[in-house]
């Protein structure tokens, strides 16, 4: 077996991650993987908001879903080993795998599955019988299984504590601070190589760097704007595809044509390619679409280029306008510098924008994690994360999704800015660490060398 490391190659001003290999050694059992992150969680319940990459990754360690989506976007069995639909996609029936147990040894039953799905999806009619779980939807959804792969649809049993069927069981939990997971010996796909995982949350980047350099942490976050520097320092990095959307989100729909025009002017004024080049050293993507091109295939058809002349023209046509208050997360250093750039671009177009730390901002600069499922589900989840009513798509084909996204973007309720990569620093002792294109961890094959 090989283990994998990453080296960074500069090519056409893009940073690319390339695999390289070391000794052909078999995986070693044992050891604790120590992860440090700036993110925090109040709860590990996958049904709780807000969604985050950390929540999704921890959910996958503790809980399973009926199906999963592989790296090619194909649906694969997980707790369900087969499924079929009837009524043109309005009724779905899933057959559960045999022999699945929760971490307390109790068997997974269709009743438990149905209860978990009903709680996460009150509008679904979920029926359990024997090994079968039947889901009846209000409207037909031809690609419905993709929704069941979402972490909010993880199957868990709620009681004094949350019980799952995943490869790990929770052994210590301090909300917002610390989580310790222990490997399950009886996991259905075989015990993982690691004995345990220790996760420290809420750690500033500087503290993460220090503990990493001292050998006290194995995996740390690297902020997107620090990735090139970290690579230059010789850190071993693993990155995802651009899978986090940074977007300007207006608190309400445009109330008039004048307001829509002003928002259009703001969108035209922002130089996203320059932001990507200067702030991210070209390691992200300038975004004019909600979903990145690698997810949809069409993202490039939305132009991310600035057009100051058009922005000024629209600003002039709109007439008098009040100052917008732009809010952002004060702990997010990248958001702060992006906000400053937006202020400069807006001023050049004759727009007045001021930053604020108040919760009652007109516009918020937010970051939303994207999940690899299919275009329709991805877009639907994104709307949900932004607090916007999902658009009903007539079809799940790519042209329908493009049309829905285009219509929504023209409303200027949001202005996409950047698609960011998730970057992690990995210590030399961590073998087989890999992340999916959407940043999801694949911990099941990870093992530790040189430290037990």
């Amino acid at each position: 077996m090989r283990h994998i490391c990453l080296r960074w190659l500069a090519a056409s001003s893009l940073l690319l991650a390339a695999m390289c290999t070391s000794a052909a050694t078999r995986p070693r059992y044992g050891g604790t993987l120590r992860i440090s992150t700036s993110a925090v969680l109040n709860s590990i319940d996958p049904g709780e908001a807000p969604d985050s990459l950390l929540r999704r990754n921890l959910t996958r360690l503790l809980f399973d879903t009926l199906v999963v989506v592989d790296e090619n976007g194909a649906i694969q069995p997980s707790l369900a080993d087969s499924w079929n639909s009837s009524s043109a996609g309005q009724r779905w029936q899933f057959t559960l795998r045999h022999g699945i147990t929760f971490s307390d040894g109790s068997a997974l039953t269709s009743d438990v599955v149905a209860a978990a799905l009903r709680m996460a999806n009150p509008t679904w009619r979920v029926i359990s019988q024997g090994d079968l779980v039947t889901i009846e939807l209000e409207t037909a959804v031809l690609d419905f299984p993709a929704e069941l792969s979402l972490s909010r649809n993880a199957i868990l049993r709620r009681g004094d504590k949350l019980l799952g069927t995943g490869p790990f069981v929770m052994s210590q939990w301090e909300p917002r601070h610390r989580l310790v997971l222990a490997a399950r010996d009886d996991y259905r796909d075989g015990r993982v190589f690691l004995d345990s995982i220790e996760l420290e949350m809420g750690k500033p980047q500087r503290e993460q760097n220090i503990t990493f350099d001292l050998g006290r942490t194995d995996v740390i976050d690297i902020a997107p704007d620090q990735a090139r520097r970290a690579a230059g320092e010789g850190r071993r990095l693993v990155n995802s595809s651009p899978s986090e959307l940074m977007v300007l989100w207006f608190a309400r729909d445009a109330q008039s044509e004048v307001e829509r025009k002003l928002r259009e002017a703001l969108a035209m004024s922002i130089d996203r390619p320059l932001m990507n080049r200067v702030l991210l050293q070209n390691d992200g993507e300038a975004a004019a679409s909600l979903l990145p091109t690698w997810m949809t295939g069409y993202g490039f058809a939305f132009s991310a280029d600035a057009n100051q002349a058009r922005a000024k023209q629209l600003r002039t046509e709109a007439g008098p306008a009040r100052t917008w208050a732009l809010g952002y997360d004060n702990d997010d250093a990248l958001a702060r510098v992006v906000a400053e750039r937006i202020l400069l671009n807006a001023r050049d177009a004759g727009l007045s924008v001021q930053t604020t730390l108040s919760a009652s901002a007109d516009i918020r600069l937010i970051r939303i994690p994207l999940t690899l499922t299919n275009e329709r589900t991805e877009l639907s989840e994104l709307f949900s994360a932004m607090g916007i009513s999902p658009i009903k798509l007539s079809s799940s084909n790519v042209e329908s999704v493009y049309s829905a996204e285009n219509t929504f973007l023209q409303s200027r309720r949001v202005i996409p800015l950047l698609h960011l990569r998730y970057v992690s620093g990995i210590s030399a002792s961590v073998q087989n660490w890999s992340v999916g294109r959407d940043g999801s961890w694949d911990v099941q094959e990870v093992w530790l060398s040189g430290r037990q």
Partner: protein
Amino acid sequence: MAWAGDWDVTEQQLAAKIVAVTGAGPAAVEVTNRSSLGQTDVEAIRRGLLESLSGAGLKFGNTDSASVNVQISLSENVREYVWVAEIRKAAGAAATVVLVSKSRTNVGGMTHEAPPISLRKLLLWSSDSHILDAIVINGALPRMAVLYPAQIQFYRLQGDRWMEEQVFPVPHSRPWPRDLRGRLVLRKDRSVEAHLPGVICLGSTANSLSINCHEGDDPWPIGTDQSPLNASFAQTRNFFTGALSPGIGTQNVAPAFYSAAPVPTDHGTSWLLAAVDGRIHLLDGTNDVVLSKLNWGSDIAAVHSSCGTRWQIFSAASGTGQEDVVRAYEMPGREPIAVGSSLSFPGAIASLWTAPDDNAAVAVTHNAETGKYEAYLLTMACSQ
């Protein structure tokens, strides 16, 4: 490369959508590739698109003379090829966008570059499923047995092809450990044994095939005909516990190890162990000596040949990029010496066992290019 016919329908669909927007033309059309398609496919698609557009009534013009500009991008997402046409009816005007998509999984005729072939390895079998081990059973009717996690599959040689003969399931009540390992052993009486963690299968190949499996923790035979040795395998892990029978001299317990190879000497047989601690141990019946400065992997196997000292040790190690290599060593003294050139494999070596008759080894690799598991017979070749 895909067959030209694979793209016909998609080309016609996009052409129809474009012409519905542009009318009969003239239009300037440009095709750009933003996907993983190769140049040959791109050229075929470009020609097909232009033919389909022409067939749909579009007249072509150059960028200067045509009032309509059509920019076609051959793009993709993780599931589909997505072809996007941005149609501008005036310079600087907003584009009308039309799209078509085609699943990436049902494009027929896709080919992969063949992995490099070495003269010192013979491909026995290739499978999408995880191959644990494979053995060739020579005789009037040559057979091959391949061990998979869920079954033992027998093949019979017909002409120059292995044809499926019979399948025997390998039942097991507990989940297999990760990095699952297994070994096939052919005894001199032509009986076959399959050893997996916590499961042993016994059978016969003498006349009709038969295999019966049961759960048990019998030690695995890890030696050769000349140097037999049995070792206990950890049922929920990927290594041998170190408990040996009948033992090496007075040594019945060794460090936990992944693989072992005998080293026959004038004074008996010593054993090399690729231990879980990452080091190579030499057990001579009395002493346990750690050999330093060896960049060996976890899998080693002994092979009897007509070359050099007659016994070589094959060791898996990492090569360049995603390649693994197998290198041969001899032990004229107490330190291994590399002999001959190494064999490269286009992926990780998942197992390496001494083959029946001790004159070869079987390496199973996970081809990084194709994703398939491949079982190779490895032999030493030398000038006589």
